[in-house]
């Protein structure tokens, strides 16, 4: 290749530089796509560690049952609030997951994706609000037992995560409205940096909402099903 460089004229040199720039951009697009892939998985992993610490507290205090105060009789959060938050989270996650899968595969109408994402974002947002509102209506004092303490610790955290999911989906929706073709790429736009970052973020959010659905189920089972 060096020989080629040496043997070419000024036009050839410019072409080589152009090719080098194209190579750099191509490598960086691949890196950017990979960074979203890695980032989403890391975020889910670290979030799992955080909720894992909460679950450790749940089982640790449950097994110790100090002063037989793991859970006093009748302690149970509102079923209405728990079920509402669970359903909203699951529906939001399913909506976003399904339509994004379709969109990334190129089989979804962009308007459908926007509507689904908007609805999912709203569901996560409202679920967070209901969760926070519900914290004032638990019917038990936070320090009355181990169960009550863990519940009061974990559920607001879950609400914050719901807000995070709502934020992430809203930014994707806003992005798709501002730059419409990122949702329905055509021709050369497929490999554009905007499309790469958008698709990477959308795919990452897909994993995150699936994680949120899993967490909501686990929390519901632990706090509302297990007696």
């Amino acid at each position, binding site marked *: *290749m*060096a020989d080629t*460089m040496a043997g070419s004229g000024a036009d050839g040199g410019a072409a*080589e*530089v152009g090719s*080098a720039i194209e*190579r*750099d951009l191509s*490598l*960086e697009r*691949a*890196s*950017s796509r*990979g*960074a979203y*892939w*890695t*980032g989403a998985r*890391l*975020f889910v*992993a*670290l*979030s799992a*560690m*955080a909720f894992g*610490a*909460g679950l*450790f*507290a749940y089982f*640790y*205090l449950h097994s*110790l*049952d*100090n*002063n037989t*105060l793991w859970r006093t009789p009748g302690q149970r959060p509102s079923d209405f609030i728990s079920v509402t938050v669970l359903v909203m989270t699951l529906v939001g996650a399913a909506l976003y997951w399904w339509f994004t899968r379709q969109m990334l595969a190129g089989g979804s109408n962009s308007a459908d994706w926007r509507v689904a994402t908007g609805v999912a974002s709203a569901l996560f947002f409202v679920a967070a609000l209901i969760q926070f509102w519900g914290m004032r209506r638990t019917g038990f*004092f*936070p*320090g*009355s*037992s*181990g*169960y*009550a*303490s*863990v519940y*009061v*610790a974990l559920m607001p955290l879950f609400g914050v995560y719901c807000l995070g999911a709502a*934020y992430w989906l809203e*930014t994707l929706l*806003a*992005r798709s*409205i*501002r*730059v419409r073709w990122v949702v329905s790429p055509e021709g050369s736009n497929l490999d*554009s*940096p*905007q499309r790469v*970052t*958008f698709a990477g973020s959308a795919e990452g959010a897909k994993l995150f909402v699936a994680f949120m659905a899993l967490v909501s189920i686990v929390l519901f089972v632990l706090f509302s099903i297990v007696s």
Partner: protein
Amino acid sequence: MATDITAGATVRAGGEPADPAATTNGSWWAHPNIAYGVVGAAAGYALGHWFGNWLANGFQQIQGMGQNDYAVVLGYLGGTIGWLAGIGAVTYPLLKLLGYQATAQHETKRSLRSYFGYTLDHKVVGVQYLAAMLVYFFVGGMFALAIRTELLSPTNHLLPPGKYLEVVGEHGTMMMMMMTSAVIGPFGNFFVPLMIGSRKMAYPRLEALSFWITPAAFVVLLSGVLLGGFPTGWTGYAPLSIEATQGQDSYLVAFGLITISMIIGGFNIIATIINYRAPGMTWTRLPLFVWAMLVTAMLMVLAAPVLAMAGYFSILDRTVQTALFDVNHGGSPYLWQNLFWFFGHPEVYILALPGFGIALELLPVFARKPAFAYRTVVAGMVGVGLLSWFVWQHHLFVSGINPDMRPVVMLTTELISIPTGIVFLGAVGTLWRAKLRLTVPMLFVLGGLFNFLIGGVSGVFLSDVPTDTIAHGSFFVMAHFHYTIMGGYMFFFFGAVYYWVPKMLGRRLNTRLGKVHFWTLFVFFNSTFLPLFAVGELGQPRRVFEYAASLQTLNIWVSISAYLIGLSMLVFIFNFLKSTVIDDPTPIETNPWGSRGLEWMTSTPVSANNFDHIPEVVSGPYDYGTGAGPMATIGAPGAAVPVSAAGQPGEVV
């Protein structure tokens, strides 16, 4: 498109409207800076404090307690948010809500002002980190000198017992918390992209955020002194932490902030190393320093959330009055111990591994031979990272672990000495039959290895239940971990400062003063901490300001040695300021140490894009004396400009 690298000027994506921050140059909010940050912090603190008072008004329990932790915690959080908003960290997340997105930061300009702002240039963030870490270290060191001053006499006291505990707590927390990122912050952020042939970090905004959180944590931690301090030391054990005054809130919030900083900093490092390696930079060509950064970052990202949760639980116990750590109401103080040490022991390796990464990186350069047992050493570092998850309960040997569990944890703890030993032997193996160049960085590396050996061997004793039961809580333990962390980690850190500052700042630190710094630090460090093993064996407990009169001579010796460490640090400060600020700038060699590393293939100071084109890596970083060609080609493909042809030594045998 040329763009400003400061946060206020988010890059415009092609084919879409420019974002407001990039175009509204006259707007005050488009130019965030430290002054706005300070104003924002003050306003945020006042608002948060007021809100906390308002919130607490409705709770009879809080009014009866005599202190309102709500107001303090929310004040700190409000202040931090205000600080970050003022510095420009929240501009982009808000713009994202409107659909704006930055796509590139390739063409950037750097000015002195960049070093005092929220910047997306990883080199600037590295320099910011270096300056900040040195400040945190010296402040923590001042607390250490206060401790040693108090311990000059067993009976005459400068500090009352409560105040002494505050000072011990501030010293320990400053060193174990603020200094966690002492290597990964300055050197990881600055050099990882350069060493892997990348032109940027994966998430530059997160990188900047990870740094700008640390000043907030620093101020919050120090402010604890004004609120009565925290009596728990850096480990924050319950139930004392729940009963303590509002100073404990500063400890918890500061630790929380630092864990966030650690998580996002580590997150960025991992994503960068995995995805932004240049072509040809295979896993077996990855510099050992980068491997150390990767393993460390993994530990940070996965361990720190657990500590964050523990701190959050503690704040809840102090504010909304949960009983997570209160045994009388269904909680357990052991819950704190388990969660804290689940982070706390990996934390030890979060400190040790970057230090070893520095040693392993510098040794081949100054030994002029390949790194010994590269793959085995990498396996050793990964092994340390993996095993570090299974040893935390040895911190509970004495405090109440199930006795049947002790042998299991003793075994895992002893097991970790195997991969640690492999890493250590890998470093020593590189010295075998080498033509050593005893430069200042090399002296610090050798000194660090010597110290770490003492710290490591004393650690093996402490992992045994019978020995630990006797030595627990004594100065023996204190001497052990100071040998590993200050004797190892900080010696390696200073080695890295002397080695890499020429690349970071374009100035080489004075060699003569550097040698004075090394020899005084090495002698007085050992003079300070070696006697403490004996002091501990003779029964002096940690965190107690009175001791047996028979131990006074040893304590006086140790205190005087500690002051001399302080003098040694003054030599360093003088050297650093003289060489980087006072002396006239003189051009330095592009590659003063004759390293093969990719980071030395760039210009000094490093251009905004690091490399004009992404390099092609063609050989390993440590092929000294093997006849291998330069590590990489730089420039446009086909131009094939080798390192040596670019005016850099590349291969010096």
